């Protein structure tokens, strides 16, 4: 029974350290220090991943047998769309935490995620339109996938605009949290749209269960770009949060000390 006991102790220790970590994240001075060292690593890693992935996808990967070279847009279109959806979960989850526990850092996270998600959604829509022209013969079509992505863009922009519309920032954060939670309905619709209303947009090529409908020589650069875009999302999120914290905590002792030390 000794290994079982050791395992249980390890799980308990991990559990404790995880909760300590989550509690620390709620503290602005701790978060500021932690995110500062994270950003210093994440910035060069993200730039390297993006450059390697883009060169691989643009120059090394073979052309598609049906779409030719236009398919190379997949290496930015799919990662942008995937991370735009994942970013919405981050924003809505932070909104829920902010509503339930009234944690200020959750507000900051929610608001920092909104512009990043909006930019990624816009990139997915624009690159999709450019890809659509040589492939479908049209820039735009009111296809279910495309329309639900457009709604996602409006939800992100709505959160940004709603926060600016309120004078009272506590009420603003609460309204934004409610909006982002209600908008979560759109996420499974986006996922399932290509199967429910199949018109022009092709269904997913990568599947977690079963074989992907894409060759390894095309899949690896795509996976690399998805990882790169996730890193980019975290990086932009942290940078937005830090810029926000520096301003809202300008009267705090810990920040004055940090500024004085530089």
């Amino acid at each position, binding site marked *: 029974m000794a290994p079982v006991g050791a395992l249980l102790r390890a799980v308990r220790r991990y559990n404790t350290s995880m909760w300590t970590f989550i509690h620390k994240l709620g503290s602005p001075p701790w978060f500021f220090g932690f995110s500062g060292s994270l950003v210093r690593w994440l*910035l060069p890693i993200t730039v390297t991943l*993006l450059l390697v992935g*883009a060169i691989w996808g*643009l*120059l*090394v*990967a*073979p*052309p598609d047998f049906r779409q*030719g*070279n*236009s398919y*190379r*847009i997949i290496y*930015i*279109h799919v990662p*942008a769309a995937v991370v735009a959806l994942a970013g919405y979960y981050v924003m809505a989850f932070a909104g829920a935490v902010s509503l339930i526990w009234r944690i200020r850092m959750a507000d900051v996270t929610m608001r920092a995620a909104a*512009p*990043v998600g909006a*930019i990624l959604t*816009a*990139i997915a829509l*624009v*690159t999709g339109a*450019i*890809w659509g*022209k*040589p492939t479908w013969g049209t820039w735009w079509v009111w296809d279910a996938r495309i329309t639900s992505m457009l709604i996602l863009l409006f939800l992100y922009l709505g959160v940004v605009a709603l926060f600016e519309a309120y004078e009272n920032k506590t009420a603003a954060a609460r309204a934004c949290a409610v909006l982002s939670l209600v908008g979560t309905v759109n996420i499974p619709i986006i996922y399932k749209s290509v199967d429910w209303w199949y018109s022009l947009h092709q269904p997913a090529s990568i599947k977690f269960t079963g074989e992907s409908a894409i060759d390894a020589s095309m899949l690896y650069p795509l996976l690399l770009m998805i990882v790169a875009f996730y890193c*980019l999302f975290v*990086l*932009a999120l942290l*940078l*937005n949060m*830090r*810029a926000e914290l*520096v*301003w809202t905590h*300008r009267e705090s002792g810990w*920040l*004055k000390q940090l*500024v*004085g030390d*530089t």
Partner: protein
Amino acid sequence: MYFESLASVWYMDGHGFYVWLAYALTALPLVFMVWLPIKRMQQHWRWLQAEQRRAAAATANQASVMGSDV
């Protein structure tokens, strides 16, 4: 490397315009998205540093005025 010359990379069998336009329209907002908060943070930081210098100068000034009275 799939392409044989720089010209074929640019042309991409007729799809070059679409591919390069898509990549350009992605690169610009991505750079903007990272650069903007860094810039904003630097501005705030400089403002705070200047504020501390102002406060320190005001204190020093106060002290010298009080010193001359004695």
